[in-house]
């Protein structure tokens, strides 16, 4: 998933090879992670797909089943992985993930601590953000979950950036050998306030911390604990609204004033309208928010470790 070796640049024009991880795309809400294996098959409602047909094709290719059904084979990315990974716990989604990485100011070379690992959805994005020379230490108290996460990180190719530890962070704090080394830290724990003292020891001065909690009572207690050693304590909620786009064919809806376009007419535009003449006269493209949306994921509380002199 990540290009960790500078000599092997990330180029998706690379052809699919035996053993590669591919994301099989049926629809925007139906995707699956598959490891290509010569002699193996992939089966869905569109029929049976032979892996041997996939090998040698570029990523992004459309491939057909025995019944002429088709799917697309996409190159894996942390975003796609979040959509296909197996849920061993509740996971973080893209809106929270991207905001956390930006707000924790994680850049290549950072050392980041995380607890718990959960299903590794955020961890994969953390690994991408610190690559190629940083590292993520992630901890979960559930032994089997940690083992599954390790397998996943092997599978997605981020394992060299991630160390998974089995440890009850809430009960025992972070390990002493990481003291004063962390640039950033992410907590997704039921009682994060129990870890704040240990967190302060792990972080560098001005290092950033984020605590994710679904309930406001958890936020309340965490913020109280944070006020001792942290500053710039801010709590956010971030959500995504998605839109549906459709073309409505309607003769009465034509008209030159109907286009809300902001651009002044330019050469390009005119040529485009020329080529799409039929469509622009008889149809309008309209967008509206999707009816269903995630209403709440969790509150994100950020803080910075105070700089003592």
């Amino acid at each position, binding site marked *: 998933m990540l290009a960790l070796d500078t000599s092997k640049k990330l180029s998706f024009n690379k052809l699919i090879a035996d053993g590669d991880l591919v994301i099989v795309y049926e629809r925007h809400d139906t995707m699956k992670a598959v490891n290509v294996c010569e002699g193996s098959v992939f089966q869905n409602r569109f029929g049976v797909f032979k892996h041997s047909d996939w090998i040698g094709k570029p990523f992004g290719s459309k491939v057909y089943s025995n019944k002429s059904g088709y799917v697309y084979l996409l190159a894996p990315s942390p975003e796609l992985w979040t959509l296909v990974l197996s849920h061993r716990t509740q996971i973080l989604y893209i*809106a929270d993930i991207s*905001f956390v990485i930006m707000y924790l100011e994680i850049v290549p070379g950072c050392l980041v601590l995380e607890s718990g690992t959960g299903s590794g959805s955020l961890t994969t994005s953390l690994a991408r953000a610190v690559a190629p020379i940083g590292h993520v230490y992630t901890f979960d108290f559930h032994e089997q979950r940690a083992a599954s996460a390790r397998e996943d990180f092997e599978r997605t190719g981020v394992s060299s950036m991630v160390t998974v530890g089995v440890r009850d962070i809430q009960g025992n704090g972070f390990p002493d050998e990481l003291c004063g080394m962390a640039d950033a830290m992410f907590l997704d724990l039921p009682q994060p306030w129990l870890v704040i003292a240990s967190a302060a020891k792990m972080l560098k001065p001005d290092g950033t911390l984020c605590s994710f909690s679904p309930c406001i009572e958890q936020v309340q207690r965490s913020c109280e604990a944070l006020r001792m050693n942290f500053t710039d304590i801010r709590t*956010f909620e971030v959500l*995504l609204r998605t839109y549906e786009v459709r073309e409505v064919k309607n003769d009465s809806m034509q008209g030159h004033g109907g286009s809300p376009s902001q651009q002044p007419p330019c050469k390009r535009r005119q040529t485009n309208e020329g080529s799409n003449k039929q469509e622009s006269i008889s149809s309008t493209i309209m967008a509206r928010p999707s009816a269903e949306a995630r209403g709440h994921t969790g509150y994100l509380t950020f803080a910075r470790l105070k700089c*003592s002199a």
Partner: protein
Amino acid sequence: MSGNQSRADSVQSRRVTWEGCSVLLDINDGDRLVFSRLTENSTLKIGKKNYSLRPLIGCPFGSLFQVEYGAEGSKLSRLLESAEVSNIQENGDYQPVEEHRDNRELVDNNKAQSLSGEDIEELRRQGATGDKIIEALIANSATFEKKTAFSQEKYRLKKQKKYAPRVLLRRPVARSICETYFTKYPARIGFMRVDTLSLLLSMANVAANSDILVVDMVGGLLTGAVAERMGGSGYVCNMYLESSPYPMDIVRMFNFSDEICKRIVRTSLSDLCSVQNDPSEQMGHDVSVTANASDEQMCSHETLTEPAVMEEIAPPSQNEISKCKIPKAGDKASQETIDLWKANGFSSLIVAAPELDTWNTVKDLMPHLSHSAPFAIYHQYLQPLATCMHNLQIEKMAVGLQISEPWLREYQVLPSRTHPCMQMSAFGGYILSGVKICNPEST
């Protein structure tokens, strides 16, 4: 872990300021935000006075400074831990006491304060610190004791901002730079909110060792944010579709090392499209002409837009500039690099070009992406993205198409006083995201 230690020296992760570094100064808890460069002679104006920024050099980012009055006048001096702690106790956030006071007896007749302006000046002349003046104001306020604990706290904070202003030394990174522009000059960054910017970077899979094609008409914010995520590996190709490159002054706010600056390059679409056959004469000619034109353009941008920086404080003198040389980003991409992009395609695309036609831009750029490359298109209006999404579907150029609008709400969290903040940004822009597919018919 030893490998992790060595990279601590790289400029990007420096946590202590140095002479010539770019800083973000937060005055009185966000009341004012100022970008500045720390030099021997740079100053910051607070109220009617100019304060030297020299005391800030060599301090860790995150340090807090306060105006202090001394024998030789007032200056900025660093607030240390003990002072901060006492301030937190003053805020008294710990126990929510049952409040019996209210405002029924408070009358706004301007008679509550018995200290006059002259009295305060006199106190100052005697060398009273800002904190002392605040104490005096409180002692001489007839109504302070009648206020609720919350409004006492507000009163104290208001007086502190006036008589003992504070300056927080912040690191200029994508987050703080985007937030500052969004607060102060949102139009310069195309009204792109920080959560939107973060989504663009994620959706376009920005990572080390990739080649990101960027159309940045938001002042360089996008280019800088992408370069920050790549940490001096791969390339950010800042593409321009018209005759001259777009300004990217915001890139200079980041404290980028030479290494990172070298990875920010510019190319015109025509250079990328130039015909591959007959490379000897045709291309050589082409390139030299555009190179000249763009160099000129870049220089003029550089000088013209210098004041576009929030409040550029006391521009450093010529010899100072040479002493603390700022690495320059945005060289023209080498032919060798362009050829590599032509052969392999870019690993992803981000467009933030409110002034260009979205669909035509995307249509022109898609062929330059490698197969299965993700892309993210920003716009502050929905319609151009809807049209673009529809056309991408019709032309079967991409899958996983989605238009998203992020929503961000901040909360005030205090004992017994937790609620969403009274002010919020209602809009941070729309994003169209998707993944390019291999379409033998269309390419």
